[in-house]
């Protein structure tokens, strides 16, 4: 194993933390209220084909380079446009994620600290880590996943006595429209954000298969999100739908004895860790996309400028929290084409071309050139 390779386990952990990222703290509650768990399950099932699509794009050509494969499959001009679109989406999402958890820290613990300073501090650490190499981020994720699992488990166990099973009732009697909205919103955020995870797989060690690794990561993230969501609903009930950060509130209620209270710090910590990994992955994907679109050889020199660009977007994306939550609620409509339509399109074209070439190649007896295309 090369020292800069990322092992399958590390990659899985990174995918988990990426997906769990900001959704863990907001609790992923949707319009479906107590039926949100159903939306999470449904979205998980829906996302499996998407995982397959991304893995196939990565496997389209040797080298496992996501953006390069897109350009190869869709042709130079169209592929570049697709890359730019994905990069733009990554940039916006990066800013939203950073904004989201800077906002959280600002509101919950650091009322007097400006949001941008929190974002800057996090960004500096993200840039430093990425400049050490993507594999460093992956190794950190693997360690952080342990902390995450421990903290979620501990909070669920401790919150047991505050739980009320009747909060899940009535089961699945929400209006279908609400359920659908819920499914779409959890499908889009976080599940379909995996498009930004895909470029990372280029750095994974060659003897690990992409699809199983990817799917395992997504599934594990699903388990954590589901557990967290059910915990929040059971503890908070109605409150779950009105508070901004339901995981934080749910955990703050835990009270065991005089001394074992106030464990919501655990949530703050896990949020920061997951958000850190998420920002790192998004920043990496943004840089990769930009690199491919602009034709740079290496992504490392553009980490700092892209990071600063994301930072400038943080205060610009919304002027206040309600606008931010409005944006997060409506982001799916803008994001879904990029998240679903483009990759599917690319894959169809790429597969078609490959078939065509396979049919042609034996007859003409020449090796098809990889980069030459429509």
């Amino acid at each position: 194993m090369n020292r800069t390779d990322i092992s399958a386990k590390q990659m899985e952990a990174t995918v988990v933390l990426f997906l769990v990222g900001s959704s863990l703290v907001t609790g992923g509650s949707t319009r479906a209220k107590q039926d949100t768990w159903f939306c999470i399950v449904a979205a998980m099932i829906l996302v499996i084909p998407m995982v397959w699509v991304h893995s196939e794009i990565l496997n389209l050509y040797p080298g496992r380079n996501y953006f390069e494969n897109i350009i190869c499959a869709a042709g130079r001009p169209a592929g570049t446009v697709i890359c730019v679109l994905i990069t733009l989406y990554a940039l916006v999402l990066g800013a939203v994620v950073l904004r989201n958890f800077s906002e959280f820290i600002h509101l919950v613990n650091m009322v007097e600290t400006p949001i941008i300073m929190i974002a800057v501090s996090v960004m500096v650490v993200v840039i430093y880590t990425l400049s050490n190499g993507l594999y460093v981020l992956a190794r950190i994720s693997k360690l952080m996943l342990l902390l995450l699992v421990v903290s979620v488990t501990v909070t669920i166990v401790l919150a047991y006595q505050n739980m009320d099973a009747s909060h899940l009732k009535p089961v699945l009697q929400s209006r279908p429209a609400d359920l659908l909205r819920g499914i779409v919103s959890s499908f889009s955020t976080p599940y379909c954000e995996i498009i930004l995870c895909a470029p990372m797989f280029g750095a994974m060690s060659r003897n690990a298969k992409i699809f199983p690794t990817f799917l395992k990561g997504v599934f594990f993230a699903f388990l954590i999100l589901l557990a967290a969501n059910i915990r929040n609903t059971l503890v908070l009930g109605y409150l779950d739908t009105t508070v901004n950060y339901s995981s934080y509130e749910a955990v703050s209620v835990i009270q065991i004895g005089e001394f074992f209270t106030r464990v919501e710090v655990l949530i703050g910590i896990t949020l920061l860790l997951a958000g850190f990994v998420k920002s790192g992955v998004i920043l990496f994907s943004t840089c990769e996309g930009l690199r491919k679109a602009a034709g740079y050889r290496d992504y490392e020199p553009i980490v700092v400028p892209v990071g600063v660009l994301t930072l400038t977007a943080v205060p610009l994306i919304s002027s206040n929290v309600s606008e931010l939550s409005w944006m997060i609620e409506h982001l799916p409509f803008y994001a879904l084409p990029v998240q679903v339509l483009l990759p599917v399109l690319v894959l169809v074209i790429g597969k078609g071309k490959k078939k065509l070439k396979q049919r042609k190649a034996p007859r003409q007896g020449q090796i098809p050139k990889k980069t030459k295309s429509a």
Partner: protein
Amino acid sequence: MKKTVKISALILEVILILFTFSGCWNYHELETYSIVSGIAIDKGLNGYKYHITFECIKMSGGGAGAEIEPLLLEEDGNTFFDTVRSTLRESDKKLYFNHCKIAILSPEIAKAGIKSLIDWVQRDSEPRLTMDLLVSREETAGDILRVKPQSGQILSYQIAGTLDEVTGYYGSSTGVQLYEASDILNTEGISLVLPAIEKKKEASGETVQFSGGAIFKGDRQIGWLASNSNKYYDMVRDKVKGGLLMTGPTPGSTQICLEIRKSETNVTPVVSGQTVSAQIQVQMKVSYAEQDSEKDELTQTGIDKVEEYAEKTVEYGIESVVKEVQQNDNSDIFGFGSHIYQNNRKEWERLSPKWHEIFKTMKVNVEAEVEIENTGLSRAKAGD
């Protein structure tokens, strides 16, 4: 190239440090705060809406000989937050609410509605959702905080601690934390009961005690629940953690005292057209704690009979409490409506507009099953 990245990261860091050294925004020393342990909310004087008494923790002395004393601040204001900040007119320390454990409401305020208080606590990041809400039986809530604490140095913490004990071992009042209250207020078909507190005169001075609960309808208080009734209310809500059950051959007699070990309640609403009834099943495990009569009840009446007495007592108690609430307050504090809502949403949507009337006339059917697990360290006399 890697070097450039590192150097730029370094420069960014330096800038960050320069910025941050100009002010560590949230850096606050403990002594710049005045830690609030509990608040009491009354109707405001001189035209103000609220009059709030803050019980703060005050230090006197220092080092090993430091003593903790309560310090009462009182302030008027038109909103909660306005009142909180108004204290800065007379004190150099900002009030700090994170360790505030109780909020006592005066009846007047409770009658006017508690939504705004809950909103503030939920919205502000300082006060915690685990704050206990109480209603004072005295005319002003501030009076309660003026009582000298018996155990410990801070009355609010004493009250919060007592509330835990009274819920677990006596069963006369049940603590309701703010997040639970908020949940109940926003759930359909259930009303809130907050524990009530009153002053008590003793030879050595005044002290405070819990006495039953305050019944709400919506967010307004409309009546009181007696100490004894509260126990049966808890049973219907399946909130009994412990407490005593006094029973005897006739309802209301107190020859035998049983301690509740475990209690489980199932409420099944039965809907048929416009009439609703509720089936309440109580399963209780108790231990035989005391007999206060001339004859040896255990030996002479037999354990089965005592269980029967207890079942009768529970059934009678619950039925009379439900009736009392139906007649006096007409507020669904038992959550019969929410049971319908949770099991059959459509049915509830049909019934809910008229729930007010349906609840008033609904019938309850109580079935209790009491099992005596042990008789303590004594046993029935042999040979009788």
